[in-house]
């Protein structure tokens, strides 16, 4: 707000604690260049606190670590196997399945009947086989228990020795019988190999 120089002088004089030297000399500059600003309604600015650079570094490192941990978790999830129920067939195979159908000749009625009867016979046969094996196992375990009881009747000490655990059983392994017996003194042929010997 531009006031006349007269009004300005008046105000200055009313202030009282003003330097009299300045009051006595008139300014030659334009009154517009000297004015009061309006009232400012802001709070005083916050003091700029100087943070230790070490603390800044620490904060940045913490952020980095957080991000790295999240990445590791994601990678771990990738490595865990998907449950089988969630599997979908390979997309490529779906596309290509139509090209890969086999040209099968239609089965004759006799062939179908033959297969049906075979399945029925096999069902009965395998059931009988299973029952027989179960029966044998049950008989054997029962007999072993009877033997232990008889041993106990004879001597308590022997019985206690007999019921000790034998940990060597756990390391037992056996591969099943093969179609043909092993050839005696068989010379194993060399397999295919890549020569990796260094040549200088």
């Amino acid at each position, binding site marked *: 707000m531009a006031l006349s120089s007269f009004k300005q002088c008046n105000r200055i004089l009313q202030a009282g604690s003003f330097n009299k030297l300045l009051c006595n000399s008139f300014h030659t500059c334009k009154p517009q260049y000297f004015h009061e600003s309006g009232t400012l309604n802001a709070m005083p600015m916050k003091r700029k606190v100087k943070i230790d650079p070490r603390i800044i570094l620490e904060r940045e490192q913490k952020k980095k670590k957080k991000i790295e941990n999240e990445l590791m978790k994601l990678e771990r999830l990738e490595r865990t196997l998907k449950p089988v129920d969630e599997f979908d067939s390979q997309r490529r*195979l779906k596309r290509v*399945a139509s090209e*890969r*159908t*086999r040209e*099968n000749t239609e089965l004759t009625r006799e062939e179908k009947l033959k*297969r049906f009867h*075979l399945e029925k*016979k*096999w069902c009965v*046969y395998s059931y009988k086989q299973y029952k027989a*094996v179960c029966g*044998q*196992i049950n*008989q*054997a375990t029962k*007999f*072993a228990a*009877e*033997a*232990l009881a*008889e*041993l106990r*009747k*004879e*001597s308590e000490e*022997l019985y206690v*020795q*007999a*019921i*000790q*655990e*034998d940990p060597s*059983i756990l390391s*037992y392994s*056996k591969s*099943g*019988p*093969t*179609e*043909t*017996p*092993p*050839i*005696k003194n068989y010379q194993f042929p060399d397999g295919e190999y890549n020569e990796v010997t260094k040549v200088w």
Partner: protein
Amino acid sequence: MKMSSSRTQAVLAAIPKLIKHRPSCLVRASQHRNYSQSSAAKTTEATAEKWGLAGALYLERLPVITPKMTRLEQEYKEYKLQQEVEQSLLSEYEITKKEEEERLAIQKKNVLDTPLHLRNIPIQTMQDKEELWSKELAQFTPADRETEADKSNDMRSTDRKLDQSLVLLLKQVVDGKEWWYLPTMNYTPGLSMREVAEQALTSNCGTDLKFRVFGNAPSGYQIKNYGREKREETKLNGHKVFIYKAEYRGGPVIPNEDNSVLDYAWVTPKELRQYLGRTTSRVLNKFIIY
């Protein structure tokens, strides 16, 4: 209540032979269970029920080859393989084979169109590969399922009857009589029953035998009653043999003549009856798993 052997035999004879399943109480009675926990009070009666102890080893050479398939099994296997092929999709190999055949057919048609230097370039087709593979297979001849021991019926070799398990039996002289039985040894105090059974084998058949006993508990037992003379002589009613099952791992059987072991044989479970008689083979059949 105890029953002497003659009485039980009379009772058993009275059961009509149509009944196939003997009631278990009578079966137990015929085996002469030792009910004499308080035998001290009963010693004044006829015979004190004391039993000698022995350990035996059922050494089994497990089957080396699979048993022969029955006709039904063979038919079913072929049917299932056929079905698997029918219900499958074409594999990569079959597709490339098909493509190659088509290509060859086209090439043959257009032989005159292809320039000279491009004709008759050998491509290693799938057909050639298959021929190579079948040649390689033909070079390998597997061993016979029936061995020489089968043909000569050598009872002492373990090569006989590779599709069945074989048991070791020893021919011993006991009380002047020769008889076949599992390797047995009388119990010596200070050993566990399993050790008695193991020593029964090593002392009678040499220490080169490799075998493995399963567990410390016996697989079965057999009670043998003595005749009147022996009962009076030894003051025992009989003896109990505790049988341990073991797997044969290799090594020769050298019968120990000092222990009056005359002979040995590797016998299939079905042939056991010829060597051991009905009662013993019945006992052993209880823990044989075919």
